[in-house]
């Protein structure tokens, strides 16, 4: 049986990728954010996961509005990163785990989740920035990956409750997997931020703290809100917390908080990292 080790949650602001490329981790502006990661990286090198299941949102690299899946599960042998248009270096490719992906897909469809499956899938900064943060300077990524993209672009968005349920179904699928892989779950994006409109620059520390405090012990507290409620509280792009909610569901059961960091601002974003180990 595969073992779920826990979950790592982090913001994925593109500018973080730029700071890594320029080696700015120790600069005054960046250090308070990067300080959140040594503890997480150490935990990962100690736990040695084989597979990462990553909940994220695509920002117009792989998906356009011609076809916009609510939930898309990667089933590729390899996932390439690519130019997103604003100068981030292209990261080296990730290795997939297609046999694992297909078992997951079979389970999800069997559990009434009408997902989209992707045998080719470019992954953007929402996957690559977290990988660079968690495994800094890695020449080869030490895990194989199953990316799961959640639509946060075009309304209607999936409800927080549905995202948590998706996570629970992913959890059940991993538990039923008969391999002996060690699995880490990753949720990326957030916390509060808004890029568009007259309300650009909006942040909400109270709601962010509520999310950080609740996600581990009582994730259900986050799913009474609709997605529009969350946008009102956390900003248009603060809705990326959906990725965290789904990832929390995929860990399942009880968790112990091993590390937390919260810092304002990184670019326009209240940035955070969180490590929840499975109890």
């Amino acid at each position, binding site marked *: 049986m595969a073992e779920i080790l826990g979950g790592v949650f982090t913001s994925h602001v593109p500018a973080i990728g730029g700071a890594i490329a320029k080696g700015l981790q120790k600069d005054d502006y960046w250090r308070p954010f990067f300080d959140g990661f040594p503890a997480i990286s150490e935990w990962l090198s100690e736990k040695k996961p084989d597979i990462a299941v990553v909940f994220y949102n695509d920002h*117009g690299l792989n998906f356009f509005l011609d076809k916009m899946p609510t939930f898309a599960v990667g089933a590729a042998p390899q996932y390439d990163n*690519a130019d997103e*248009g604003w100068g981030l270096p292209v990261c080296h490719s990730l290795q997939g785990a297609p046999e694992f992906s297909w078992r997951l897909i079979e389970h999800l469809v069997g559990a009434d989740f009408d997902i989209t499956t992707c045998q080719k899938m470019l992954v953007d900064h929402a996957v690559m920035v977290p990988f660079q943060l968690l495994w800094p300077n890695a020449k080869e990524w030490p895990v194989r990956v199953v990316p799961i993209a959640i639509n946060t672009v*075009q309304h209607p968005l999936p409800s927080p409750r549905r995202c948590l349920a998706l996570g629970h179904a992913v959890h059940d699928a991993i538990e039923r997997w008969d391999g002996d892989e060690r699995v880490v779950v990753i949720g990326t994006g957030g916390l509060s931020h808004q890029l568009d*409109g*007259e309300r*650009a*620059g909006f942040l909400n520390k109270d709601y962010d703290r509520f999310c950080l405090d609740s996600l581990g012990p009582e994730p259900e507290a986050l799913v009474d809100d*609709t997605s529009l409620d969350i946008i009102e509280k956390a900003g*248009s792009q603060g809705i990326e917390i959906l990725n965290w909610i789904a990832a929390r569901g995929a860990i399942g059961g009880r968790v112990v908080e091993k590390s937390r960091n919260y810092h304002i601002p990184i670019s326009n974003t209240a940035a955070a990292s969180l490590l929840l180990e499975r109890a």
Partner: protein
Amino acid sequence: MHAERHAIPGTTPFDGAMAQRGYELNAMCYSFNDAENRKAFLEDEDAYCAKFNLTEDQRRAVASRNVLAMIEAGGNIYYLAKLAGIFGLSVQDVGAQQTGMSVDDFKAMLLAEGMEA
């Protein structure tokens, strides 16, 4: 309709109506993932916009570099960010423009939020 049921100040949820209105503009911005296309836009903006059949409102919004007008014309910020990138504008430049602040004031506002944390 969704947006009317739940109006959020200074925020335009990108719903079906907006996705239809903005399709051409967003399609053009999506093309800017490719460096060749960014170059083609810079070389002949009119021709490039014409190729994507931008509406008059969209063409005017792009010509004026006015992000709020682009959003009004159906632009989605995830795609518009790729257009902003062509002009070397960060999300903070874009935020400042939309809120009518100077970029320095916009950045200072964000830093001040951090100080209060």
